[in-house]
């Protein structure tokens, strides 16, 4: 019996979502592979242009979600593995339900399907800063939990970590197309307007590219993909919503290795665009909330600012000009769009400056070229090119053996990442030379301390406003003194651990390295890199809080200003 292959069936979803009857049949087939009786199946949403759909199913085991993932199975497997990893870490991400064979996903119709818990969610408020902060805080949790992720065998390695230079180059190139099109279709008022402003945005892109190449980015990516973890890639008010215990994150289809600032930057800049103004209070509030969940080290913070300096919003909204220039240029909405972009941009640079952005001006003879060739990137190219040849087994039973033979290239890259100090001690200088404090941006000052969700109030005297267990006990938990590197002899060839039981509610233990799920396939380099990274983040947080507690500031001011004691 040949199975119907799932392919896109139409344009972007209209008012009433529908699916082809064949897809319904496949859904029934998939359901039969699970140990549950479905009383009702309701279509919730579809992506007809991609071939994706989600149903809510009422079962004898409670409400669940059934989803067909539209990407290729090896690519989807990367996301499924990520979802399981995150759930095991304690993230607020719906848990995957295993089918009768114990697999966390099924292949049917040439695509992967998953069943997860159904979580009742409400969107965070879009109109006030608190809502945005809730989103940012949840995002920070997500990123933090995702660190150390390694995809299962058969998964395509999805990564955007090394792609910033290429992306910036492409945007720069395409902005020049806008100029040519505006000049070619010059008989519209919008063209003249666009011609008048495109040089400015092009210069912004040049500056951002120049700063990217000469800034912290090359050093940051040397740490490698697993150390940084994943970005959601499609984060916003629909994919981050309030639920039991806090902010839940759904729709992990597109997750990929990346710097965490990717999601945060997109969230901030799209919010600023929607608001029509770069609002410092909002930006600081959002960054602060994120920082509470996942501390941002200075270089990464600078990277966030560089990515904000890139004229992403201009590019994103104008790029459709190439498809139907006449329509675009004649559309009255385009004139309004240009107004909006210009008005917003006018407020951008003062705000970025306040936040401490240091954007270098590209010299006038700057020729955009690819400059960032690291050995890590070289093997990453190789890794990204390689799809595992193995078709993902429908019996996918969780994180199994280590990544396939593509590994030799990758481990060369691992050896290129700065070697962990021989005695992993909290006091040793991290291998990556840190820019001295003078060069890092001035710590952004929070204004009125915004209400951050679920943040325990630390004692004002000695800890910054960061939601972490106290530092000394955390360093103990790292157990660095007694850390025994796993050598070839001690690495276990024991049988794989028993598959974790399906989780109904995520484990809520606080995140520490020692609490983190250990896996037998975890290499020494992997563990070292991860521990080093976490340790540095903690040290950073302890020594140089990004957002000083305003109560400490008040205390310091009071101490400075108190009247001098009279000498007796």
């Amino acid at each position, binding site marked *: 019996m040949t199975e119907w292959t799932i392919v896109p069936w139409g344009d972007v979803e209209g008012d009433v979502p529908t699916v082809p009857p064949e897809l319904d049949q496949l859904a029934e087939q998939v359901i039969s592979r699970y140990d549950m009786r479905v009383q009702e199946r309701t279509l919730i949403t579809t992506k007809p242009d991609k071939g994706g759909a989600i149903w809510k199913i009422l079962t004898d085991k409670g409400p669940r979600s059934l989803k067909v993932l539209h990407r290729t199975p090896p690519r989807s497997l990367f996301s499924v593995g990520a979802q399981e990893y995150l759930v095991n870490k304690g993230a607020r991400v719906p848990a995957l339900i295993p089918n009768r064979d114990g697999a966390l996903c099924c292949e049917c119709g040439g695509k992967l399907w998953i069943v997860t818990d159904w979580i009742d969610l409400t969107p965070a408020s879009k109109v006030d800063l608190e809502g945005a902060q809730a989103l940012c805080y949840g995002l920070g949790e997500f990123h933090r939990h995702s660190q150390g992720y390694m995809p299962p065998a058969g998964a395509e390695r999805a990564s955007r970590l090394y792609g910033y230079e290429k992306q910036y180059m492409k945007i720069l190139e395409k902005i020049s197309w806008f100029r*040519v099109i505006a000049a070619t279709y010059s008989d519209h008022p919008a063209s003249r307007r666009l011609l008048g402003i495109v040089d400015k945005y092009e210069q912004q892109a040049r500056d951002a590219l120049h700063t990217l190449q000469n800034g912290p980015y090359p050093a940051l990516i040397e740490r490698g993909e697993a150390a940084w973890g994943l970005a959601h890639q499609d984060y916003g008010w629909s994919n981050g919503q309030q639920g039991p215990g806090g902010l839940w994150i759904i729709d992990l289809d597109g997750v990929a290795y990346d710097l965490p600032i990717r999601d945060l930057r997109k969230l901030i800049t799209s919010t600023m665009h929607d608001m029509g103004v770069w609002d410092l209070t909002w930006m600081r509030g959002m960054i602060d909330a994120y920082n509470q969940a996942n501390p941002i080290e200075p270089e990464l913070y600078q990277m966030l600012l560089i990515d904000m300096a890139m004229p992403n919003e201009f590019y994103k909204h104008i790029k459709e000009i190439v498809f139907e220039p006449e329509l675009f240029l004649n559309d009255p909405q385009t004139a309004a769009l240009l107004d909006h972009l210009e008005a917003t941009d006018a407020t951008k640079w003062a705000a970025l400056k306040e936040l401490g952005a240091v954007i270098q001006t590209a010299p006038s003879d700057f020729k955009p070229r690819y400059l960032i060739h690291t050995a890590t990137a070289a093997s990453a*190219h*190789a890794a990204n090119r390689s799809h595992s*040849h193995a078709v993902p087994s429908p019996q996918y039973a969780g994180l199994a053996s280590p990544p396939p*033979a593509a590994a030799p290239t990758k481990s060369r890259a691992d050896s290129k990442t700065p070697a962990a100090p021989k005695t992993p001690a909290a006091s040793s200088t991290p291998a990556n030379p840190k820019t001295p404090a003078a060069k890092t941006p001035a710590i952004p000052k929070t204004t009125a301390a915004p209400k951050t969700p679920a943040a325990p109030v630390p004692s004002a005297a000695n800890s910054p406003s960061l939601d972490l267990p106290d530092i000394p006990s955390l360093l103990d938990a790292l157990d660095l003194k007694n850390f025994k590197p796993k050598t070839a002899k001690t690495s276990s060839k024991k049988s794989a651990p028993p598959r974790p039981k399906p989780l109904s509610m995520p484990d809520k233990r606080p995140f520490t390295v020692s609490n983190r799920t250990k896996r037998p396939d975890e290499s020494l380099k992997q563990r070292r890199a991860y521990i080093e990274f976490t340790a540095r983040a903690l040290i950073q947080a302890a020594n140089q809080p990004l957002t000083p507690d305003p109560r400490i500031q008040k205390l310091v001011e009071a101490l400075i200003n108190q009247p001098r004691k009279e000498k007796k």
Partner: protein
Amino acid sequence: MNILMIVTEKLPVPPIRGGAIQTYISGISEGLSRHHSLTILGRTDPELPDSETVGRIRYERIPGGNFDLYREGVEAFLKDRSYDLIHIFNRPLMVETVRRAAPHARLILSMHNDMFLPGKIAPEQAALAIQEVERIVTVSDYVGRAICDDYPQAADKLRTVYSGVDLARYRTGSSSRQIREQLRREHGLTGKKVVLFVGRLSPKKGADMLVRAMYPLAKKHPDAALVIVGGRWFSDNSISDYVAYIRALAARAPLPVISTGYIDAAQIHHWFWAGDLFVCPSLWMEPLARVHYEAMAAELPILTTSRGGNPEVIEPGRNGLIIETPEQPDEIAQKISELLSNPAKMKAMGQYGRRLAEQKYGWERVVADILSVWK
């Protein structure tokens, strides 16, 4: 000698799915097999058997697509076999594996593009590859220079062996003229001076610059037309934004700009026959595009850029001209205009180009070069 040629993991040989490297190998393998016992190791393909002998050539095919997978297969393949000489195509990363599996074989490496760039291969791997091979054969002096820039130790081992073209297929005559007239009629090009572009539609190939050049060209040559052969085209819904960009430029051009869409390798010489002037507006440091040989073999004068290896096959003023700054559509237009204004010169250039191709760029010459490298 007992010789093994290792093709890349990407496309099969014979070139049923295209590929410049694959075309190169297929052009020379028959000639080489007359002098040596030749085995060609390549990737599997649903339409090709895993093992076959065609004429004097033995074809062996192992799973490809993914380089690491393919490399494993190469290692396994070499386990119980022995060759006097192993000729690896465009994969310096393969050298280490092959050397380990065949410690006594002579190794030759053919480089067709930038696989030695720092972003593609770690320095130690590159140095090892250079050390283990006897010779590095490149498709242009430019490729050799680029390797030397990063790895000066390679200098002594480099040797340029230009690629070739099927001279018989591209030869013009009465039947080619018939096809020419027919194609031109079908596309409304009768009586036009046809400027021809053949290649992929990606920004670095510069097709957009060529379309822009049509604007200033129109005044002096209102009977010119541009034909773009290759790639997805204008009517396709899922075109990339670059193709949409070209389409937008073409829509307002004062001269006709025609796209043919994808043309099969077996038919593409028809378009060379239909054209009058061949232009390669590549912006990037191109190793050396095959289309130059094809244009020469079809008796077309050539306008190419000073990028990469492309200028190496041009004798300026004799078989073509060189564009110094292809980012300036005005310069492209000016050089096109210079040629279109002088039909006699164009004809002489085309004929000279054909003679040049017959002398230097036939597959026999490439075979002779490779044989001398192997000696």
